[in-house]
């Protein structure tokens, strides 16, 4: 940047220039470092959980590579550019959801996928995980905070439309997470506490109404099993009992890598996807789980720093929502596997097997990096 200029560099200039190497490619070093740690950990655990399947490992690694690529691409985008296009992207996402609703490809008994043979196959719901907070952040940032009642209502509509479409797929877990990411934007945007408390108070009757009219049998079963897993030890409660046994039998230091018995002998269902933390808990014990949670906390801490340092309100709201939603992923997954929360089918970020969620997550971190690295530098003397 200073090439051709003939000036004496101060010590501060030198430091900034060294940091600017990654900044020039719009990558945040801390986030990258922590993501690589998580990805490596994830591959180790997956190797054990997947029954030493190297093919699985290679697929996951390449998904991670693809996600990294997408992350870097997203990081290049100006946050202002995102803000400008977010409304259109939101509309596009909703249209795709409607298409899925009408002519979706049927996978796993639930209609979630858009499939253009030979070209692309993806879930519009994944896109909405980013588009919804982005759109809300854009919408709220246009005016002073806290938002007015009218804006809150419009925001609520913007949240509910994709929620309903996705919940009908039916994928209540994803729908709820998308709603949560939208609500976080509202929360950060200064939604009044009385509204928040009021909404929480309204949840009870809404929950009862959902139980009676919206929820599918298998979802009701999940809640019932959650409340009393032992009621059906060989059926619905099996997952929870087995995952608790796996984690609990790990003890403080675990049984050692590749030595977990629960997960290797098929007792633990979905051990390499949603329940992978049980494998980690069994093989690496309390120490392993706490270390992992610490890494997550560091990652989230860095994301919070990015949020606080963001220069625009749009940037702050979006970064904050992505950060808090990411934590919710971790919390819900670990909470469900350890029996604190009902089973909702949320993968553990960066550890669970699955390319789609990996790409979405890394895109989110790409947005964080973009927000951080596209800041306008104000010259300090």
């Amino acid at each position: 940047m200073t090439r051709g200029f003939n000036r004496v560099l101060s010590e501060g200039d030198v430091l900034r220039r060294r940091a600017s190497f990654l900044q020039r490619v719009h990558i945040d070093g801390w986030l990258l470092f922590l993501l690589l740690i998580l990805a490596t950990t994830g591959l180790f655990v997956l190797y054990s959980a997947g029954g030493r399947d190297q093919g699985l490992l290679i697929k996951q690694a390449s998904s991670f590579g693809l996600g990294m690529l997408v992350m870097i691409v997203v990081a290049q985008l100006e946050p202002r550019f995102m803000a400008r296009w977010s409304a259109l992207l939101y509309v596009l996402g909703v249209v795709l959801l409607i298409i899925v609703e009408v002519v979706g490809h049927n996978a796993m008994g639930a209609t979630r996928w858009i499939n253009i043979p030979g070209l692309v196959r993806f879930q519009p719901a994944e896109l909405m995980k980013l588009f919804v907070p982005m759109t809300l952040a854009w919408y709220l940032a246009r005016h002073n905070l806290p938002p007015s009642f009218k804006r809150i209502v419009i925001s609520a509509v913007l949240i509910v439309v994709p929620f309903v479409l996705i919940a009908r797929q039916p994928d209540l877990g994803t729908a709820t997470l998308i709603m949560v990411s939208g609500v976080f934007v509202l929360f950060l945007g200064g939604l009044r506490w009385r509204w928040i408390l009021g909404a929480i108070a309204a949840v009870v009757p809404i929950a009862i109404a959902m139980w009676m009219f919206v929820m599918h049998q298998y979802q009701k079963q999940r809640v019932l099993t959650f409340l009393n897993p032992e009621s059906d030890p060989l059926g619905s409660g099996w997952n929870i009992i087995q995952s608790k046994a796996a984690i609990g039998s790990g003890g403080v230091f675990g049984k050692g890598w590749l030595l977990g018995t629960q997960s290797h002998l098929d007792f633990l269902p979905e051990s390499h996807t949603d329940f992978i933390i049980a494998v980690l808990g069994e093989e690496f014990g309390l120490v392993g789980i706490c270390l992992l949670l610490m890494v997550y906390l560091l990652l989230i801490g860095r994301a919070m720093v990015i949020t606080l340092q963001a220069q625009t309100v749009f940037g702050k709201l979006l970064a904050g929502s992505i950060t808090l939603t990411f934590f919710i992923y971790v919390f819900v997954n670990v909470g469900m596997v350890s029996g604190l929360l009902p089973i909702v089918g949320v993968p553990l970020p960066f550890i669970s097997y699955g390319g789609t969620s990996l790409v979405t997550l890394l895109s989110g971190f790409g947005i964080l990096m973009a927000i951080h690295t596209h800041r306008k530098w104000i010259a300090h003397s």
Partner: protein
Amino acid sequence: MPPPIRLKDHERDTRLIRSRMLFGGAALIFLTMLLMFRMYYLQVVQFEHHSTLAENNRIHVQSLPPTRGMIYDRNGVLIADNRASFSLTLTRERAGDWEQVLDSIIEILELDTDSRELFEKRIRQGRRPFEPVPVMFELSEAQIARVAVNQFRLPGVEVAASLVRYYPQKEHFAHSVGYVGRINETELKKLDPINYSGTHHIGKTGIERFYEEQLHGQVGYEEVETNARGRVLRVLNRVEPISGQDIYLTLDIKLQEAAELALDGRRGAIVALDPNSGEVLAMVSQPSFDPNPFVTGISFKAYGLLRDSLDQPLFNRVLRGLYPPGSTIKPMMAIAGLDLGIVTPSTRVFDPGFFQLPNHKHRYRNWNRYGDGWVNLDLALSRSNDTYFYDLAHKMGVDRMHDYMTRFGFGQRVALDMFEETAGLMPSKDWKRSRYRQPWYPGETLILGIGQGYMQTTPLQLAQATALMASKGKWIRPHLARSVGGLQPIIDADMPADIVLRDDKNWDAVGMGMENVLHGTRGTARKVGDSALYRIAGKSGTAQVVAIKQGERYNRDKVQERHRDHALFVAYAPAENPAIAVAVMVENGESGSGVAAPVAKQVLDGWLLDDEGELKVEYQTTERSTTEVRR
């Protein structure tokens, strides 16, 4: 005034978002702490609980049942075999609604409701949880295929290969070897639960029951790692089972068959002993039954037929049949009389055809109404003279008789290794007082002297008493096992005292009397003795089934077939050097010398003669020439 332009207050927004973000951060740290605490609770506080759960999930101990020992006859002919058989097992806990699964089995294999009842009974008999219960045995190839095709309808149902007892000799040894059957609930409570954890069958009667411990062997086990569906992934540890010990019996299949043939379809019992060793050479109780259906569980119908049959095929006449010994007791009575000094071989008694107690009118009849005149010991035995023995019994008295007869094994169990033997009855004054609260009448002593009245013996006891006559009082309990696991079978801890006479010649005196039953000119069984290639000592007897009134004669036409007297005959041979003692009982055969004696001789022939009908070399004695001269 134009309305104020609402400027974006960036600072205020930033402050708002920061405070919200800090709140979020606090909540997040709180929730993370919650997760960590939850993990601490699971992994540290509840570690033991979950550890056990996980281990139980993983490691299952499967028992490996030992192979039951085989049973052979004395020549090595297989009597009890283990045959590979496919059985259908059902695990109740895995079947869900097991009654419905049973219905499906019945439907798929096209069985009748009778078998369903049986299956249900087998399942209800109950074993340890999660243990497969065999419900059906000996599946055919077609049935296995049908089960395989319909496996999806039969949760918890498996086809298992196992070794099942098989008795190739069928009914020949049902009463001596016995059979195994499914372990029932009462037995389950008494059994060592570990050693029998993989075993479904247990000896029910006979040798199978008596030597159950030796035949069963020691259970082995393997620790296997299973997955959630119970599929075995690998064996962690394996301890091989120790097979049960093979048993070689004293029985001889050829003699057994010869004895059965001799009975010629009549109901009855035969025991043949080696008097020198106590080995049981043949043990026949006719009619018999095929033990094989009992192994797998006999159907109600088939069992009902056996149980209710008038011929009582399930009844072990040798060990449990009680008969008055009749005149077969006379040789032992004679020994007692001689040894107690009541008579000498030359003591004579006059027989007018009856005996009367002093001052009593009642006449105790001799079988020969016309009387035998002056009778000495030899004649009393060969003619089976009742009057002589009435007199002897009267002089001896019941208690002395009881004591002496007991030494011959009467009124007590004599066998070493037989299951459910009956002790029989040798009455005494004390016995009658405690049993009937009545005094002993002198007349009862008299009829006891000819083996009638209260006295009851089993064919085995008669055979043993005869063997004692042959071995001159040397006691060895009759036994069926020759070797168990190649070793000497159990030692007799309760060996009765040998019968030692004051004068050893008395054995010969009574023995001669018994020889003259068959070889004497006036012997009751001389027709049988005439055709013998060797000398036999024997005694016939008749056991009354119904009492005959005073002064009435036994009239066979008036008596229903099953009320006719039982024919008895005891014998040993060769008389000079006894190698075999035999007791024969023919139910309702009427005549000891006419019916039972030929049977006894056939049995003796079966043992002493070779295939060409010649006396085996080892039984030939120097006295044989004299025998031939006499003939």
